[in-house]
């Protein structure tokens, strides 16, 4: 009998494959579709066909026998119902998997840009549709009814998954805000789908499969309504069980979607949660920021007056925003055009925000200048080599010369070969040089590196001329922390701090620190920690050590010419997903599960927020 089933499936496979190959050819030959390659017509149609195939392979379990008046003969054969169904499922399942493998091969051989649905969504819907239509295969003799009921069930299934996501978020994290059907059709892997976990996704399909398994045991020649009565009688309790089980798995597999924090200079605490928006804690009060802006991971790049500036980037848009901390409103200063992105590297100079904007493959890269007061946007194309071929870039300084402003941009493909460019306001682009480490620019002085030297450049007639080469055999890299990369306009800096840490191995061995006095360019070693230096402060400098062995965080401070232990936060295992530390310009926020504690510089005393 297996031979018969293989033969039936083979015939169907040949028919399907022929159809999939011929239709695109027909569309091209008849010029219904023109100016496109065969593959670009074939692959999208093939994917659509595959979904039909998945449905057909599931729903057609008994279609051949029904079509040939052979159902009675089939059921009278000396096999149990399970044997019959097993023999029928096996070749169909193999066919479903084989065609999926064909899809994978085509997908990885140039089909990536021709996908009808995103890869994950396609895979998920392909196999779900197969299992759903298989589960419903005996519920009707009418193929159209099976088709409609399978699609409807798939729709219900996807929405039940969303409901489970929502319930998990409600149970473990902040309240549900936006989750909708679109996430299954997004081009990128969605965290909400990660949240579910594969087990949870599969378990929700189980009730249908289990009911099918239990009902098929009693499949006979009576009308489908007799079978369906049994099927749905079983489905009600099993579905409830499956739903609860799926929820439990989802709940168990998901990392808690906790809040993210930022402490402002005037000691207000910003809290952002994936679905419930933004709150601002201020002493005993809490305020909700008005507006609908999607998820925001607060990591402001600038604070000025009552404003905190940040970038919001979600799957729908990239924006530069500012929060007004006095009236708790959020204002969009700039929104990137569709399919355009920009990085965290936003440099502020004389009220102008400078950043790079590009499309997914970096073929269209622009230098954008946003004048904050007027909101005027200037875009300068960056199509010079090697800049246009580099995917990594950071703006690290700005200044004014000859009545015109310029910005310094570092780009690289190879970490040991960082190219420095000078981008002028009028669109002119100059290649300044190459550094093996991250360069730095302050007060007209440019620091770059060779393998074992720190090179000091000074501006002379618009050029950077090396004026001093300082041996740097330790390979220290001097600069400021992330929090000061955005503007140096108002910060009086006398010393830079350097770190010798390039690889993870170095980090485990310990990190050495040094200072560079800007007056005489003298390098002095100041100490060592086990962890990493996460934060520089212009006056007081703190070094944060996340111990990979002991579950604690140690804060070191540069005091009396040395790095000394300043404070220890015990019982903080940063490897646990519910624990997270937020290093802000003005302090440290430690989250242990739902407990949040805030410590402010310079003495790291705890700040209490009553409603937190």
């Amino acid at each position, binding site marked *: *009998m297996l*031979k*018969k089933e293989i033969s039936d499936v083979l015939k169907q496979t040949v028919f399907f494959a022929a159809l999939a190959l011929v239709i695109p050819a027909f569309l091209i030959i008849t010029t219904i579709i023109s100016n496109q390659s065969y593959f670009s017509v074939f692959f999208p149609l093939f994917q659509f066909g595959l979904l039909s195939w998945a449905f057909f392979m599931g729903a057609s379990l008994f279609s*051949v*026998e029904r079509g*040939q*008046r*052979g*159902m*009675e*003969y*089939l*059921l*009278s*054969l*000396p*096999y149990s119902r399970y044997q019959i169904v097993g023999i029928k499922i096996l070749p169909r399942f193999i066919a479903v998997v084989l065609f999926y493998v064909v899809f994978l091969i085509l997908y990885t051989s140039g089909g990536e840009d021709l996908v009808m649905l995103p890869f994950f969504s396609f895979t998920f819907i392909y196999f779900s549709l197969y299992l759903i239509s298989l589960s419903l295969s005996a519920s009707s003799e009418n193929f159209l009814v099976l088709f409609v009921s399978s699609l409807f069930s798939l729709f219900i299934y996807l929405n039940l998954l969303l409901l489970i996501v929502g319930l998990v978020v409600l149970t473990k994290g902040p309240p549900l805000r936006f989750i909708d059907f679109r996430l299954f059709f997004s081009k990128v892997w969605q965290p909400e789908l990660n949240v579910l976990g594969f087990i949870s996704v599969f378990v929700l399909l189980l009730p249908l499969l289990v009911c099918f398994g239990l009902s098929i045991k*009693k*499949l*006979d*020649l*009576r*009308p489908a*309504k*007799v079978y369906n009565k049994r099927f749905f009688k079983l489905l009600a309790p099993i579905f409830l069980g499956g739903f609860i089980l799926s929820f439990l798995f989802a709940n168990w597999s998901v990392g808690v979607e906790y809040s993210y924090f930022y402490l402002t200079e005037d000691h207000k605490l910003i809290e952002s949660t994936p679905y419930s928006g933004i709150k601002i804690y201020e002493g005993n009060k809490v305020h909700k920021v008005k507006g609908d802006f999607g998820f925001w991971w607060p990591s402001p790049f600038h604070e000025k007056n009552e404003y905190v500036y940040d970038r919001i980037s979600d799957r729908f848009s990239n924006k530069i925003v500012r929060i007004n901390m006095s009236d708790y409103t959020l204002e969009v200063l700039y929104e990137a055009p569709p399919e355009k992105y920009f990085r965290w590297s936003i440099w502020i100079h004389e009220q102008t925000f400078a950043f790079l904007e590009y499309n997914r493959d970096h073929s269209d890269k622009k230098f954008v200048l946003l004048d904050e007061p007027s909101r005027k946007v200037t875009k300068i194309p960056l199509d010079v080599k090697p800049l246009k071929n580099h995917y990594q870039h950071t703006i690290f300084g700005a200044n004014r010369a000859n009545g015109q402003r310029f910005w310094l941009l570092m780009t690289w493909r190879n970490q040991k070969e960082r190219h420095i460019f000078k981008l002028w306001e009028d669109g002119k682009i100059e290649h300044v040089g190459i550094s093996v480490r991250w360069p730095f620019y302050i007060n007209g002085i440019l620091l770059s590196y060779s393998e074992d030297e720190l090179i000091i450049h000074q501006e002379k007639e618009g050029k950077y001329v090396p004026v001093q080469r300082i041996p740097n055999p330790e390979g220290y890299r001097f600069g400021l922390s992330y929090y000061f990369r955005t503007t140096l306009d108002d910060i009086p800096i006398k010393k830079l701090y350097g770190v010798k840490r390039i690889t993870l191995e170095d980090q485990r061995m310990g990190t050495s620190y040094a200072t560079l006095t800007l007056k005489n360019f003298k390098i002095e070693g100041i100490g060592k920690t086990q962890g990493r230096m996460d934060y520089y402060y212009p006056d007081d400098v703190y070094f944060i050590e996340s111990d990979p062995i002991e579950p604690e965080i140690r804060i070191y401070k540069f005091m009396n010419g040395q790095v000394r232990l300043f404070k220890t936060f015990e019982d903080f295992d940063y490897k646990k997903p519910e624990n997270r530390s937020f290093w802000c310009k003005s302090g440290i926020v430690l989250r242990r599960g739902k407990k949040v504690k805030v410590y402010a510089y310079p003495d790291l005393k705890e700040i209490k927020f009553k409603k937190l």
Partner: protein
Amino acid sequence: MTEKIAEVENLKVNIGRNTVLDNIHIQFQKGESVVIAGKNGAGKTTFLKCLANVILPDQGRIVFSDKVSPEKMGYISDQLSLFENYSVKQGIDFHSSVYQIQDFDTTLINELKLNLNQKIKNLSAGERTLYHLGLILAQKPEILFVDEIIHVIDPYLREKFLEAVIDLIDRYKTTVIMVNHTFTEIEKIPDRVLVMEKGQFILDEKTESLGGKLKKVVAKEEIPEEVPCIFKREASYLKEYFIYPFDEEFRKKFPNDYKDINLNEIIKAFIGGQYVKKGNQ
């Protein structure tokens, strides 16, 4: 000595809200040939489909003797169900492989002079019936179920079919359970007659004793109420009374001309009686 080959216990089948088979208990013996009759919708076909494992009971069970493995059961449905896209040859190959038949006896199929490459769907009803019987004969079945198909076969093939069935009974002591309305041409076959009504058996008699238990009286007058009449038919001024169960004592107590009738008329009387009963309800 009789040998039990199948026992049906407490069998119940519902279709929707209708109870089609209602609490049936019955046994079948090895080598006996049974004909099940009854009016349309009585449950005969459903009962046969239950025996053939095509319909699974909602309640009760059917226990076959250890000798009756699933490979030793044959079923010819009233729909003449086969994989009709198969050719005659493919059908034989498939049946041989499923029923693990080593030496397929094609005698009956050869007599039909079929083209082996001909599709089963292109066979006539008669050819298809005999072809299916040929497939089953190759199994050397212990038990054969045949659902109301005799009337769709032409007289020549019908005779061949019946000969083959009789041969099967003689050679292998196969138990044959047939559903049929008319007994005209199969009168020689049944050892036992069952009549169904509303999902239950209302008559279960050996054929040889049935003639003595059912008599017909043709009279102008009404017969006494003490004489059990299952069916009364009025033809002009005469009335036909079918008496069941007949007792020889009736001849003395209620003298009448109690006539013997053939099997076909007996079954007609039972079925007719059910229609009359239904009309009176």
